[in-house]
């Protein structure tokens, strides 16, 4: 699904690289945690996959496509194959829950009939079927993040990227979000989640990739957040 081949990313020449010589393989259907302190390179890692940034050296390959070499007009096509969720939800405040989710399909030029079928379906999946006509400010943080997940997933992309999706949420709400991501993963979607929420990582027992100052220091199947947390 995702392959990093000796990827280094430098934002400028003087400072240390944001990512240094990262090589890694993520198989389709995997659930991977990307952990590390702030500034360890997690966000850069995701931005390289989204082609918000390009690797300075090395190759990032997503679904067989060399992301760095992709011509600019093919980037939208790449992004249609992945959903993305962020700590700050990034919902449109002037649109209802339904409209926020439908927006994804509208900008992709989908037919109305398809939108009217797909949106309630995915809102049902995230458990917000009864709140379709609410506006984001009428929802709790957890509910807003569910809307964001619905929007990212409504197009059924094979890959879901999540950058600190529980960063703004209390632990109980976070558990609900994690259950939802786990459910999405179980239907075959590859999930890559950057986080520094140790409790969640320890609980899920999924593959853990740890970054520290731009270097990959750990890649464990069924890992935990850090040595201190090992049971």
């Amino acid at each position, binding site marked *: 699904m995702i392959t990093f081949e000796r990827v280094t990313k430098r934002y400028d020449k003087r400072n240390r690289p944001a990512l240094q010589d990262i090589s890694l393989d993520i198989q389709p259907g995997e659930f991977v945690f990307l952990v590390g302190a702030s500034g360890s390179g997690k966000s850069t890692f995701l931005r390289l996959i*989204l082609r918000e940034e390009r690797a300075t050296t090395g190759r990032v390959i997503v679904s067989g496509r060399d992301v760095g070499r992709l011509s*600019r*007009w093919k*980037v*939208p*096509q*790449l*992004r*249609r*194959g992945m*959903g*993305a969720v962020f700590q700050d939800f*990034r919902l*449109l405040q002037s649109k209802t829950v339904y409209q926020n989710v439908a*927006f*994804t399909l*509208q*900008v*992709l*030029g*989908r*037919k*109305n009939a398809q939108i009217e079928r797909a949106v309630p379906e995915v809102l049902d999946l995230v458990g917000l079927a009864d709140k379709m006509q609410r506006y984001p400010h009428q929802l709790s943080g957890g509910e807003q993040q569910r809307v964001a997940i619905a*929007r*990212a997933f409504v*197009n059924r992309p094979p890959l879901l990227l999540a950058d600190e999706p529980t960063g703004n949420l209390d632990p109980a709400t976070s558990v609900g979000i994690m259950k939802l991501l786990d459910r999405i993963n179980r239907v075959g979607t590859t999930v890559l989640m950057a986080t520094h929420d140790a409790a969640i990582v320890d609980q899920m027992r999924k593959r853990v990739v740890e970054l520290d100052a731009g270097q990959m220091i750990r890649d464990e199947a069924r890992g935990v957040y850090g040595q201190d947390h090992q049971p």
Partner: protein
Amino acid sequence: MKLRFILSETFQGLRRNLTMTFAVIITVAVSLTLFGAGLLVRAQVDSMKDYWYDRVEVSIFLCGASSSVPACSLGAVTPEVRGQIEQELNALRPLVQEIYYESKEEAYQRFLEQFKDSPVTQNVTPDALPESFRVKLSDPTKYEVIAAAFEGRPGVEQVQDQRQLLDRFFRLLNGLQVIALSVAVAMLVVTALLVVNTIRVAAHARRREVGIMRLVGASNFMIRMPFLLEAAVSAAIGGLIAVAAIVAAKVFLIDEVLAPSYQFTAFVSWDQIIVILPIIFFTGIVIAMIAAGLTLRRYLKV
């Protein structure tokens, strides 16, 4: 579906930026009206040239008894010299198309006719007016040939090209046209800058939407088209106002006021106006879309 989404985004954008939209419409309307006015003056000059150059003549005034130029040192022109001049004119065919001899008496009658309301006629006798050859050229621009042949020739007092009299007038009109077009160009630059700013404001106002559109993989076309259409719609409305202004100028100014008062000359025809209208209409749209397109390249990178 795609189209409807783009259009609804476009009109939302226009509504949200109502003041800027109006500013663009007005500047487009004013600059295009001036641009049209410039083109109108040019068309006017063209049609007057067509009309007058067919009618202008070169006048060769012959020496009278009181002429003082050196070529007239022998006194009034004799019938023999006059005959020689006519022969020489005939030799210049086909450039010389028509030759008409105007005697002192005819010149006097024409003078009386032209100044019939003026007291000046009382002091003028037929003898005071020069006899002349009126020459029509097949190519009015080749006046120099006639001038070279007859200027200073014994018996010829003066060679006068009516075209030069007209040209002074045309130069005035051309000056007006240059002024109108220069102001129009300046206004079009202002329009372009205004469009750049409008798009920048619109892109900023919609940065969250745009960010999400990019994230979910909307094509550049989908992201940029509403902005481009916003610029195009404003420019088209401004262009329609300018078109209406030009049509109104033709109907109310030229046809109703100028043409009845100045019947001796031709004015711009609808044929010429029909050519001008699409030019000004599309100039506005093209300039607005280019300005918008360049702004978007700068502000909405993938």
